[in-house]
């Protein structure tokens, strides 16, 4: 079994699987259960200032999007930060960290935008012996209306300012949690780095309305006839999160800045993908809210098996391995030609590939007698839609045409690598060097 031990901004944990700041990490009881189940660390649910705690709705707090078979694909929540007294949370954090010294204990924070508030809360957290803090600049609902959460995260100058305060007033590693509800994720990450952040974590949840009740004409979840946008998360958001993580990892201004990857992490494979795109560890939430803490066992065994298969001896060998292969469109090889191939032994003759190609793509699949579906190479642009809609894994695959072969669609020979920057159709093209 591969060694999954992980170190993130100096914080050690037995594996790179942490629980994100969220309902599962709101209480000592839950966090102890999580550690017993095997989670490597937690980010405790966001603490606010001392005094009267926030109040949550007592109607539904969550709404869901389902895939087939009622598989929960996306979750939306309108819960706020912890609604338990600061002092209670701090006492519990200290007790749990004392009993689980090998696990990562990071505390999420969200207080008003003034240095004194941050100074106050940081001192309180330091006294718990927690390993670090995560600044919640991401929460998109409720708290943002009060000038916190994503209201800060959407203004890079505020991110930088608050991060600077935190670094000036605490010895603890500081992770800045970013909101995806912006246009360019690189800007807030750069701001966090300028402010002295030790790492960023992303993504927080995405503004969303999961559904509308067509009898009451109110958004779900509905509180007494009204609804509001909530934070969307779960497997459905993973592609958005992967892209944002990769953007930060390959941005020269933030390259090397440690990243904690968040967004739909459910299996070992999700975790490995985030790590390959530059995340040093991952945080999960919706998956445990769906299946319970035990899923970490699959993540541990799966990542171990994968690493053994690949001959990796530390998780660090996965981190960033795919980043050099993330590029801009203009650098993609325009001479790369593939053709779809349908494996007739695997084909169950559903015809979905035909419908997709005939109606919405390039009319490159023929339907013969007996429902035999074949690809017309002379029409196939290799869009991959047939692969994507085929219900049978690996039934349709893409076959690469080697350099020198003739593409039946264009009648031209496949040339070696060349991209848009040198393409004759590009008015800005430069001569190839």
């Amino acid at each position, binding site marked *: 079994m591969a060694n999954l031990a992980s170190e993130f901004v100096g914080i050690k944990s037995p594996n790179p699987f942490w629980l994100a700041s969220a309902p599962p990490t709101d209480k000592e009881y839950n966090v102890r259960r999580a550690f017993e189940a095997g989670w490597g660390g937690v980010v405790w649910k966001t603490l606010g200032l001392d005094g009267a705690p926030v109040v949550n709705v007592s109607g539904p707090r969550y709404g869901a999007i389902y895939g087939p078979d009622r598989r929960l694909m996306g979750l939306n929540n309108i819960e706020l930060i912890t609604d338990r007294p600061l002092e209670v949370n701090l006492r519990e954090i200290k007790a749990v960290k004392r009993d689980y010294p090998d696990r990562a204990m990071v505390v999420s924070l969200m207080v008003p935008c003034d240095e004194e508030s941050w100074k106050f809360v940081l001192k309180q957290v330091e006294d718990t012996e927690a390993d670090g803090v995560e600044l919640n600049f991401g929460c998109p609902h409720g708290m943002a209306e009060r000038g916190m959460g994503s209201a800060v995260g959407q203004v890079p100058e505020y991110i930088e300012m608050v991060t600077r305060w935190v670094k000036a007033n605490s010895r603890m590693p500081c992770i800045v949690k970013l909101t995806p509800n912006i246009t360019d994720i690189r800007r807030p990450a750069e701001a966090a780095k300028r402010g002295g952040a030790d790492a960023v974590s992303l993504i927080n949840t995405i503004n969303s309305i999961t559904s509308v009740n067509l009898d009451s004409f109110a958004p779900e979840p509905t509180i007494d006839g009204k609804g509001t946008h909530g934070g969307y998360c779960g497997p459905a958001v993973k592609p958005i999160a992967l892209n944002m993580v990769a953007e930060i990892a390959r941005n020269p201004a933030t390259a090397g800045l440690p990243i904690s990857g968040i967004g739909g992490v459910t299996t070992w494979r999700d975790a490995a993908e985030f790590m390959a795109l530059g995340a040093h560890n991952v945080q999960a939430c919706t998956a445990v809210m769906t299946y*319970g803490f*035990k899923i970490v066992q699959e993540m541990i065994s799966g990542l171990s098996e994968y690493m053994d298969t690949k001959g990796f001896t530390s998780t660090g060998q996965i981190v960033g391995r795919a980043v050099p292969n993330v590029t801009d469109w203009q650098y993609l090889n325009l001479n790369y030609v593939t053709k779809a191939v349908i494996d007739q032994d695997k084909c169950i003759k559903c015809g979905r590939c035909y419908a997709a190609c005939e109606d919405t793509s390039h009319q490159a699949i023929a339907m013969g007698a007996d429902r035999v579906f074949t690809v017309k190479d002379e029409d196939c642009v290799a869009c991959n839609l047939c692969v994507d809609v085929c219900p049978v894994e690996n039934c349709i695959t893409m076959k690469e045409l080697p350099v020198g072969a003739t593409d039946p669609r264009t009648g031209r020979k496949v040339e070696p690598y060349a991209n848009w920057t040198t393409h004759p159709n590009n008015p800005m093209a430069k001569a190839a060097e």
Partner: protein
Amino acid sequence: MTTSQLTPGVVAGRLRAGDYCTNFADVAPPLDGHEARVAADRCYFCHDAPCITACPTGIDIPLFIRQIATGTPMAAARTILSQNIFGGICARVCPTETLCEGACVREAAEGKPVEIGALQRFATDTMMRAGPQPFGRAAASGRRVAVVGAGPAGLACAHRLALLGHEVTVFDARPKLGGLNEYGIASYKAPGGFAQAEVDWLMQIGGITFEGACALGRDIMLDGLRADFDAVFLGLGLGGVNALGIPGEDLPHVTPATDFIADLRQASDLAMLPVGRNVVVIGGGMTAIDAAVQAKLLGAETVTIAYRRSRAQMPASRVEQDHATANGVKIVEHAAPVAIHGAGAVAEVEFAYTAEGAQGLHTLPETFRLKADQVLTAIGQKLGALPEGLTLAGRKVAVTGAGRTSLPGVWAGGDCTPGGEDLTVTAVAQGRDAADDIHASLMA
């Protein structure tokens, strides 16, 4: 002269040569990767899952299915085999419809449980194809344990003991390892020599010596084992069969179904194996089903299972019964044998109709007869001769806790002890748990 299904008497070669292969092929062919992925996707990953509770070996079924779903069948196999080293054969022979799959919440929801048995086979087959058994042994303890009986209980016990660092000698009256896995299970449930392949794979753990053709009470004595070893585990199984106790029972071609199955399992050429034209199987358990179906597959013209109670009360599950009827076996319920008739060989079996009354089951005056040139009895098995000193509980070896017998240093498990339902999986659980208890006791 060639024989056919219509040839009277008990003869071999009723079928064409190629038919045997077809008839005795895998009754439940394995899932391919796509099928496994689709099947695994249906698991809800229940909390404190009912399927785990229903599994006598307590395999973490939701976890192993999730591991299959995420493309790591080797990890899935490890999850299975760490609880049940016979996960491969159990995937094939367990009555899953009454165990894990019967408890599956999707059985309640849709009447279609997750295919747990088939998924377990997918994972364990993947690992067994990949190579050696995956467990390493602990440092040598210097302790030696004798295991009597090389069936599922004995070998599960031996494997766990070897894993824990002990040296184990396994004794069995039969020449081969495997017990009922090798001699007692319908061959279409584990074709291709699977039972032996699994045992060979299991034995790779090392530290286990096998002494075959070595019977307790004949070649070895319990007292001797107790003197020579630090502990003894008895996984004796049930060596005897219950008699019908009716006239004509001693006629030729009236035999225990277990013997018929064992002969079939060990036959090198099924075409050489004689079977009756009209076969009557008496009993209602898995042995009756296995014998009846295989008699039919060997070419018997008619095969009838006669059971004294109703079909609902048969120990064999509905799935097993349906398997029998789908293969052309007729099941007659409420029929108690009263005599076997024939001059020199069996010709007919006479049954009395039965009814359930306030006083339990009783026979009615009316009887009927079934033509038979072969009768297989499957009305239960019983303990063979036992060594002195063991206390009995009813008709089995009494045990407390994890298989502790009345004799110090002697444990027992499997079919020779009460508590199980004479299932392979129960025997494995008992052997394993006894091994842990033996270990705790030796290392105390």
